C-alpha cells in the first residue's frame, strides 16, 4: 500500500469512528456539536495514560481507560445537556467542547499550548480492524431493542414514553456510548500521529462530523458510513483527478463544487442519503411484501 493511500485510509477510518460517535445520539434526535470535545478527551487521556510522564501503561490499556474516563465525563454532563433540545443542544455541546479545549491548552502536565507527544504508535493494522469493529458494533447497537427505542424517541418522544420506553435513560446511554466511540477515535488519532495539540480538534472538526452524519442519514446505521466515506474520499479524489487531468481550476475550486453539492443534497434529500425507505428498497429480500396492498384494501380479509 502506498504511503498516500494509507494516509487517506487512516483519515477515512478516523472519520468513520467519529461519525458513529455522533450518530448514536443523533439516531434519537440529539444534535451533538461536541465531537471535538470528546475526541480531545480521548486523545489526551490515552496519551497521558500511555506517557512516560504519566501512568506508563501500554496502548491497549490506555485506550480503553481513556474511553472509560470520557464515558464518565459524558455521563455526568449528559444530564444537564439532555435537558436542552434542537439548536440549544447544539449550543450546549459546542460550549462543552470549547471548555475541554480551553482546559487542555492550559494543563501543563499534558504539554499545554505546546502540544503533547504520544509514545506508542498505532498503525494501519490497528486502526482498520478497530474501525470495522466500531461499524459492526454500531449495526448491532441499532438493531437491538434499545436501538429501536432510540429511533422511536426520534420520531415521537411522548408516544415512546407511553409504551414504556425510559426516554431519559435511553438518551443518556446513546450520548455516553457515542462519546466513548469518539474518545476511541481521538486516542487512535494521537497514537497514529504520535503528537496532539488541542487546536487540531476545533469546532470545524465538530461541524464536519455532524455533517457526515446528517448528510449520510440518521435513520439507519449505514448513514454515517456513507456520509463519512463520501466526505473523506470525494474532495481528495476530486483533487487527484482534477490535477492529473490538468484542470487546475477544478482542483482549487473543488470546495465550491462540493458546497453546491451539499446544498442540493439538503434540498432533495433532507433526511440524508440513506433513509429507511431506501434501505428497504435496496434490501428487498428480507423485507419483501407477502402480497400486494391492493388485496387487503379490497376488503378481502
Amino acid at each position: 500500500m502506498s504511503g498516500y493511500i494509507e494516509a487517506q485510509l487512516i483519515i477515512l477510518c478516523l472519520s468513520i469512528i467519529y461519525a458513529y460517535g455522533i450518530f448514536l445520539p443523533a439516531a434519537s434526535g440529539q444534535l451533538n456539536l461536541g465531537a471535538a470535545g470528546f475526541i480531545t478527551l480521548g486523545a489526551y487521556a490515552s496519551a497521558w495514560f500511555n506517557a512516560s510522564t504519566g501512568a506508563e501503561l501500554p496502548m491497549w490499556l490506555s485506550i480503553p481507560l481513556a474511553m472509560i474516563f470520557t464515558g464518565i465525563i459524558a455521563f455526568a454532563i449528559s444530564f444537564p445537556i439532555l435537558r436542552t433540545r434542537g439548536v440549544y443542544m447544539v449550543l450546549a455541546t459546542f460550549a462543552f467542547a470549547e471548555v475541554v479545549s480551553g482546559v487542555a491548552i492550559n494543563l501543563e502536565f499534558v504539554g499545554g499550548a505546546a502540544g503533547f507527544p504520544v509514545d506508542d504508535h498505532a498503525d494501519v493494522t490497528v486502526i482498520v480492524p478497530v474501525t470495522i469493529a466500531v461499524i459492526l458494533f454500531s449495526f448491532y447497537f441499532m438493531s437491538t431493542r434499545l436501538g429501536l427505542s432510540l429511533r422511536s424517541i426520534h420520531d415521537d418522544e411522548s408516544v415512546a414514553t407511553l409504551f414504556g420506553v425510559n426516554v431519559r435513560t435511553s438518551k443518556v446511554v446513546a450520548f455516553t456510548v457515542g462519546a466513548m466511540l469518539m474518545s476511541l477515535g481521538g486516542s487512535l488519532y494521537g497514537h497514529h500521529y504520535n503528537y496532539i495539540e488541542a487546536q487540531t480538534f476545533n469546532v470545524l472538526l465538530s461541524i464536519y462530523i455532524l455533517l457526515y452524519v446528517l448528510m449520510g442519514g440518521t435513520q439507519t446505521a449505514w448513514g454515517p458510513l456513507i456520509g463519512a466515506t463520501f466526505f473523506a474520499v470525494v474532495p481528495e479524489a476530486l483533487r487527484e483527478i482534477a490535477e492529473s487531468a490538468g484542470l487546475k481550476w477544478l482542483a482549487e475550486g473543488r470546495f465550491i463544487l462540493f458546497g453546491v453539492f451539499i446544498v442540493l443534497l439538503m434540498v432533495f434529500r433532507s433526511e440524508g442519503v440513506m433513509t429507511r425507505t431506501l434501505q428497504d428498497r435496496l434490501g428487498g429480500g428480507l423485507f419483501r411484501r407477502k402480497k400486494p396492498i391492493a388485496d387487503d384494501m379490497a376488503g378481502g380479509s
Partner: protein
Amino acid sequence: MTEHLLEIAGMHKSFGGLKVIDDVSFNVRRGGRTALIGPNGAGKTTIFNLLTGVYPIDAGTITVDGQDITDVPPQDRVTVGMSRSFQNIRLMPHLSTVENVMLGQHARARKLGDLLFPLGMLPRNRWRQAAEEALENAGVGTYPGEIVSNLPYGVQKRIEVVRAMVSDPKLLLLDEPAAGLNKTETNQLQELLERVSDQGVTILVVEHDMQFVRDLCDYIVVLNFGRKIFEGTPDEVHKDPAVLEAYLGTDEDAAEAENAS
C-alpha cells in the same frame, strides 16, 4: 379481583384558570366495553391523557386493577396493564410496521438482556414472530417491512390497535378509533375490537360515531364541559334529557345527527 378494572374518583384538572376536568368519577367494569362520549372539548381525550400520565392530575385518584396508579410515572403505567391508541395516528413514521408493533412489546421487554437483544439482525426471533403474528391476526399481516407512513389510513388505524394490544393490556384505551374510516374499514375495526374484547380485554373507547358506539359498547359515560352528566346503558342514554340537550341538541338536531352518521 375487583369488579371494576378502572376506577376514577374525584378527578380534577385545570390548565391555568380553565377547569377542563371537574370532579369526574366513574368506573369501568372488568371485561366490559365502555364508551366515553361527549361534544367536542368535553375533556374526553384529556381523560385519556390523565389516565396514561401525559399530565399529572390535580386531585383525585386513578385505580387500575386494585392498584393506585395516581403517582406512577407515565413510562411505567403501561406495565400496570393499560395501553392506548391515539386520536390522530401516532405511529412512528420512520419505523416499519413490524418495528412499530415491536415498540408496543416494550413494556414486556424492559430487562437489560431484552434491551440488548438484536431484534433487527435475527429475522426469525420470537419478538418479531410475535409481532408478525399479531399483525396477521388483525388482518394487516400483508406488509410487515413497509414504512408505515406509506400505508393507507384505515390500515394505520388498525396497526395502532395492534401496537397497543401487544403490550398485553388489561385495559385498552381507544381514542376515536373509527374517525376518518369508511364503512368497510369501520366494520373491519369493529370486528377486530370484538375479538380483542372476547379475549377478556376491557375496552374504554372515545368515539363520535354513535352507530359504532351502539354496536360495540355495553356502557356509556357522557361528559360535557369537563363534568360527567350521565352514565348508563346505550338504551338509556337516548332517553336521558340532560344528554339529549347537551350532546345532541334539540330533537331536530338529533335527527340530523342520526342521518349524518
